[in-house]
């Protein structure tokens, strides 16, 4: 799969970001990820009926999974990378001038299971 090959570098960064580093560094990475989320993701994935991403995930999972990304416990870092760089449905993909690889690694760490 071309897509998988395309993002193996990102995924490697993400994995480095969430393993083998100190607790404090992990905290910093997640804090940065929260900032990325608030800058780029929350406008569609916030809490409420006016957020199309949240509404879409509620319609898709019908409660089997939380509609809010920040409440998910199954978002492995590679999954976040996949959606940010490939998009889905009307959600477009994001360029590296918008969300850099380092920011994506932080975002993925923030959304990853703890």
């Amino acid at each position, binding site marked *: 799969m071309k897509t998988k090959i*395309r993002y193996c570098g990102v995924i490697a960064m993400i994995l480095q970001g969430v393993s083998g580093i100190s607790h404090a560094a992990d905290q910093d990475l997640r804090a940065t990820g929260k900032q990325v989320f608030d*800058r780029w993701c929350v*406008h569609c994935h916030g809490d409420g009926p006016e957020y199309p*991403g949240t509404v*879409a995930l509620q*319609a*898709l999972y019908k409660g089997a999974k939380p509609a809010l990304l920040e409440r998910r416990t199954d978002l492995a870092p590679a999954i976040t990378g996949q959606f940010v760089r490939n998009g889905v449905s009307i959600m*477009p993909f994001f360029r*590296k001038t918008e969300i850099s690889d380092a920011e994506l690694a932080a975002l993925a760490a923030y959304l990853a299971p703890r």
Partner: protein
Amino acid sequence: MSLPPGVTERDFNLALRQFELAVGREWVFTSDEDVALYRDAYSPFWNEPEDRVASAAVAPQSVEEVQAVVRAANEYRIPIYPISTGRNLGYGGSAPNLSGSVVLDLKRMNRVLEVDDRNHYAVVEPGVSYFDFYRHIQERGLKVWIDCPDPGWGSVIGNALDRGGGYTLGMYRNHFEAHCGIEVVLANGEVLRTGMGAMPGAKTWQQYRSGVGPYIDGLFSQSNFGVVTKMGFWLMPEPEAFRSGVVGVPRHADLVPLVDTLNYLENTGQMTGMPFLGSPVLSANMAGVDASPDTVSREPPLTLTASPEDFDAYTKRNKVPAWTVELRFYGAPEVVDAQWAAAKRRYAAAIPGATFTDLARYEMPLSEEQLQQVHKVAFGIPNLSIFSLGARSEMNPTPTSGHVWFSPIVPRTGEAVFEAQRVLSAAVADLDTPLIGLVALPSTFWTRAFIFIIGFPISHDVEANRKVRAAFEKVVRISAEHGWGEYRTAPAFQDLVMSTYSHGDHVLRRFNEALKDAVDPNGIISAGRYGIWPRHLRKP
């Protein structure tokens, strides 16, 4: 890595080297995976050979870096395609008109350079989004509002240059018309400032638009004559209050005086906000039109094929207005109350049986609770809720992969609305493609003309997109036959739409081409944008 058309691999590599020297190696993108991120996510040519794709991208952070990139591109004849935030989705996104162009990604130029809340203006760079702009103002407690379109992640400059619109006062809703002063890098690398900005040490670049001599600002919108690196915008001071109310009129024919009275109120400045037309006969859910809770007990809505007599019978049976208009007012509390009272008086005199419903009245600043209730863009608050159109929901289990907008400008009269309803609904009735929303009533972004906005869904299915393109071409041509021109369109349709502005054997297009040859003789900037092709790519 693909090559730009007509450029040798050697020259391309030399140009890329110059780009790297200008902006730093990490900001020149050439790998397939990075360049693919510049595709148009809503492309009507998705996965087809005609899809517009870049050869590379370069992301400068300053005017000087833009100049260096443009000079190198001019030297090596590299086609470049500037984007601001690249979020002009439905109108091309971050993809170039000409495949093989190098995208000049200005997202990193993201500084709000000045906000003046005494003279109420701002100066921004192209990478500043409406979210960025709003946050900058809020964090500093400045008492000015922005006017934003529905999607808040777009560029303030990019939206103005593509002549987008917003939702507050008429003088701010047309974003290009609300600008004051442009800085642009020309194809030879020179920096041009328009208006008063042409004077060294000018003190009023954002306070007086035209300077002296020809007023050339419009040349840099929907065009390809330079790379805009700064723009000034006039801003609304935070008003003390907002209020709105709905006027209902009982008969089908009442749309004519309803619109005439609206025009009077808006063009005299008595009604300052953006009005919204509606009809409870055509849609039980039409925004802003229905203050009554009994919609569920009504008969199903009629379609535009209903006769005026059917329309009037429906309104009597169901006790609803035929048409409504929501009026919005901004200003001092006693002034907005008086304006609404005067509007009611004028409508009551013009249209027997007109009804009035008071809606919200707020005094600024809004409370947190009020913030959750309001139509945010009417208060200059950017958001992305518009993307619920087409997104998956309980009502829409099969989401689209995007959309393109067909948006003809029609006269601001009731008679013109009736004609457009008849013509456009007949045109779309036999299309082999679904639509997003109804062809029902026009939008009112512009104070002097109506605009019908009809969405076509984009998918990743080649055949479905082929049908959308055919349908789009059909409605563009039918509209043009009736004198209704598109105000803006995606690159896939820009040649088509420009071909409908054909007065005098296409003299407008030929004039644009003459300008293009003069100011960009190598044709490097945004080849094909809005139908303006450089000489070497022009079709005979």
